[in-house]
């Protein structure tokens, strides 16, 4: 476990991570583990994060060492697509039992690896550690090493048992496993000046295949995609790429950065969601390759391809515009997709009324502001009542959301479209943008939504929960408007830091009382932003507004 905790520390120190850069030394040590509230609804664990990051490697056997829970619940649950081997979809697990828990599961793991190699002969076996064997002390690194020596085949330990932290940490630990055991262990058959890696792309719904033909046309070779539709050998020899594109900014930043450090492969962060972003990404790839020695005529060819493809996409989008005129979109999704999808939707003439920033980094938020203007309504946590109110006030005609919030949206009577991993369509690239719009059009115009928004015909409008909730909200609002003292109290009670339950009032009081100037100072005094750090920006805003305001009046605009 000591090597595991060292790896985790290393990951926490990731300088490439935008969030990390905002943290103090002490905070960084604590890691990016968002403090989970016991009793709260939680996201996936580190094991899950590691598994989903590596599972799209299609030709390796993914063996989950643990009781049935871990593989039983996660078997083949990703919509990644393979152009070749399907072995990645086979559910391999040691399915350990009570005896194994008492006497240790290492022998069973070793035998399982042997049986996989004997029966399936994959180019590599990935072994995933889970909570139970980690707790009883099964040393999967040692077992993998022994198996590797015995069978002469790569057996890769992925040490990310669930208890070490959240999903995102698991993504990074998976990246560490690749860096430590896979990348740089083999050589490609040949190299070209046009070899790139794509990192953090999972080929969900086959999205990568909407980009690949464009790269093929430019003569750019994807040496390795980590990990969508990936092959073991490609990843193992990916250190010979000339440049890299980092797709999902939070999941595998450590891989991109360390490959730059170790092998001198420059990378950029980009996105293939939306027309503009796709063009920018293609440009950057070409630019990096030319900087690394490719023939500069590549730039011209890239521009030619971009203008052709853009024209084609615009032409395909044109017919949607009248259908989307005046339609407003609320976007609830995580991380990088927020701003990249946003740009895409605006291209089609949809109006954006809000977006969630739950998983977005500060840079993501900045980009959203850039795209939507300063008054962008960014929604951190929205209750169904708030969602419904937005809808009712005609502030949104449709919600684009991740797989999990879709059901909340539905009960709040709002059309939704799933754009996260459980979606069934490929939205990447120029063609994907058109597909996304088609799906939005379907969702906007499906007759069921009219039905959803209406109460049963024998019920009166006032009796629905939506109406009651709105009336309640309106009454609260009226009460606040009539009572400035109460309104101020309510404003001060607003939670700024949810992890540590710190209100705006408490922060303001501390700033006034101790004349605080920085977020770190605020954290020291109030603990605010000492959890997931998502509220740093808000604390900064408060600091900014207070320093401008008269310190005697602690009432500051938010």
């Amino acid at each position, binding site marked *: 476990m000591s090597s595991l905790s060292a790896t985790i520390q290393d990951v926490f120190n990731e300088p490439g991570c935008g969030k990390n850069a905002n943290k103090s030394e002490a905070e960084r040590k604590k890691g990016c583990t968002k403090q989970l509230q016991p009793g709260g609804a939680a996201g996936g664990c580190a094991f899950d994060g590691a598994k989903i990051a590596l599972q799209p490697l299609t030709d390796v056997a993914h063996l989950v060492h643990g009781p049935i829970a871990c593989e039983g619940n996660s078997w083949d649950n990703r919509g990644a697509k393979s152009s070749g081997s399907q072995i990645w979809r086979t559910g391999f697990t040691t399915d350990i039992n009570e005896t194994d828990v008492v006497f240790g599961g290492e022998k069973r793991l070793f035998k399982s690896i042997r049986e996989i190699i004997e029966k399936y002969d994959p180019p590599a076996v990935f072994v995933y550690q889970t909570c139970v064997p980690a707790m009883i002390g099964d040393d999967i690194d040692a077992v993998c090493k022994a198996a590797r020596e015995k069978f002469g085949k790569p057996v890769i330990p992925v040490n990310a048992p669930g208890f070490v932290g959240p999903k995102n940490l698991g993504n990074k630990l998976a990246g560490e496993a690749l860096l430590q055991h896979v990348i740089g262990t083999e050589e490609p058959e040949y190299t070209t000046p046009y070899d790139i890696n794509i990192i953090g792309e999972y080929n969900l719904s086959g999205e990568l295949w909407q980009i690949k033909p464009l790269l093929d046309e430019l003569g750019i070779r994807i040496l390795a995609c980590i990990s969508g539709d990936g092959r073991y050998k490609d990843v193992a020899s990916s250190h010979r790429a000339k440049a890299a594109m980092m797709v999902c900014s939070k999941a595998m930043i450590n891989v991109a950065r360390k490959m730059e450090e170790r092998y001198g492969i420059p990378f950029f962060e980009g996105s293939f969601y939306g027309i503009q972003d796709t063009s920018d990404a293609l440009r950057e790839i070409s630019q990096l390759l030319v900087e690394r020695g490719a023939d500069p005529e590549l730039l011209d060819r890239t521009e030619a391809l971009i203008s052709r493809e853009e024209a084609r996409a615009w032409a395909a989008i044109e017919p949607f515009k009248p259908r989307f005129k005046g339609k407003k979109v609320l976007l609830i999704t995580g991380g990088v997709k927020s701003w990249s999808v946003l740009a895409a939707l605006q291209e089609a003439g949809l109006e954006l009324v809000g977006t969630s920033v739950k998983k977005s980094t500060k840079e993501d938020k900045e980009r959203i502001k850039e795209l939507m203007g300063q008054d962008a309504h960014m929604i951190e946590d929205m209750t169904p009542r708030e969602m419904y109110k937005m809808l009712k006030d005609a502030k949104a005609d449709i919600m684009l959301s991740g797989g999990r919030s879709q059901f909340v949206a539905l009960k709040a009577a709002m059309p939704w479209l799933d754009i996260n991993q459980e979606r069934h369509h490929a939205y990447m690239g120029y063609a994907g943008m058109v597909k996304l719009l088609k799906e939005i059009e379907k969702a906007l115009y499906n007759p*069921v939504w009219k039905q959803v928004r209406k109460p049963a015909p024998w019920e009166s409008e006032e009796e629905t929960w939506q109406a009651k909730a709105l009336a309640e909200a309106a009454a609260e609002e009226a009460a606040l408007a009539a009572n400035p003292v109460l309104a101020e109290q309510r404003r001060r009670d607003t939670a700024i830091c949810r992890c540590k339950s710190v209100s705006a009032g408490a922060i303001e009081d501390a700033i006034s009382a101790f004349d605080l100037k920085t977020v770190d100072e605020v954290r020291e005094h109030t603990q605010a932003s000492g959890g997931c750090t998502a509220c740093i920006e808000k604390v900064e805003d408060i600091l900014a507004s207070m320093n401008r305001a008269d310190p005697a009046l602690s009432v500051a605009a938010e």
Partner: protein
Amino acid sequence: MTQNAENVLDHFELFRGPEYQQMLENKKKMFENPRDPAEVARVREWAKTEEYKELNFAREALTVNPAKACQPLGAVFVAVGFEGTIPFVHGSQGCVAYYRSHLSRHFKEPSSCVSSSMTEDAAVFGGLNNMIDGLANTYSLYKPKMIAVSTTCMAEVIGDDLNAFIKTAKEKESVPQEFDVPFAHTPAFVGSHVTGYDNALKGIIEHFWDGKAGTAEKLERKPNDSINFIGGFDGYTVGNMREVKRIFDMMGVNYTILGDNSDVFDTPTDGEFRMYDGGTTLEDAANAIHAKATISMQEYCTEKTLPFIKNHGHEVAAFNHPVGVASTDAFLMEVARLTGKEIPEELAKERGRLVDAIADSSAHIHGKKFAIYGDPDLCLGLTAFLLELGAEPTHVLATNGTKSWAAKVEALLASSPFGKDCHVYPGKDLWHMRSLLFTEPVDFLIGNTYGKYLERDTGTPLIRIGFPVFDRHHHHRRPVWGYQGGMNVLITILDKIFDEIDRNTNVPAKTDYSFDIIR
């Protein structure tokens, strides 16, 4: 290997053996005047063209693959919905064997029905003697509480007078004077099984309400607060009737179902043979005159019955096989209005669940094109449901659909943007449908078992909804009415959609990259 007593092969396997294949091939070559396969292929492809379609639709006389059955089938269906009633079809016995097998094959239940077995003599001299003997034998053999008489074409062509015949038979003591023998003329050369349903039901009601063919006093209506319910000819009668009763009981409605055959088509296997089971009691059938209103679930199954009832002072309401949210809303609202009862919270919840399910799956049905054929009311009900789902009911065809029915479907299609470019085909048959499926292809076909040939020939996946369904078991046990019924229809449609997605992605190492466990 030829057939072997040690291991008897059924026909699936047996005739695939080499010696049978050889035999069949030789037979074709030597005795069947074989055509050039290239020519066969050419004609087959030609039959898929617009040119062929125009010729097909220009047909004037011939009907090919009709999607309808004959009047007496509907009459038999009605008759068994009354307590202890045996359907008696005056005419040739072969027809009756058809009704029995048709109903048996659909419901997987015995179907009791007798015939007056008219022969050549009867065809020349009239069937009076057959009626006299037939009623007497039926009465003594099967001990019914009522014998409901209908006719086949044979009796209709020679013009047998049922009213007079039954009177004469009673005079000859075939059955007691006071024994109930309602009747209806149901020639197959008029209308279809839905017409027969209408005639037979009207015959039975008229019998009880209007003085039993002059042998009793006409009933005097003393209005009460109950309502009558008529289901119409319905392949889902077992599930639907039970669902409707559940809904009425939940609402606290006082009701009489006229022609409740849900039990006789679903008898338990417990050691007892039930020739009769359940059904509307004869007393209830008579007392139904006092109800304040009568609801028909299928307008085109009660075109004569409902006006007849209206003339007796009832308020009447007709629906078109309502399926889905809005149609069920309309039905329940009407029941609530007629009875003054409230729609309970539990039904509102069922409604919400159906809306929820539709919304959850909307993306998969949205914009899919469907062809529908079936009885007129079912076509209307399914069309309305598909429009509600955001699907496009591209072709709507009823062999037994009339011009006024077509106008109603057109109005329905015009009420939704999803009905644009959709067309209705009254009086057309399944060979017309075949052309349509080639020239204007759709994603799915909704129809009865006979649609499997269309599925095979055109590759359009068939969703079995309708009557008869011979080749899938037990569908009739599930309701398609009420919100729960709408849920069943939704699931049936979705299952086929997902099966198709799987079928299109299941070739190993070729298409199975999309063979996903989550859809």
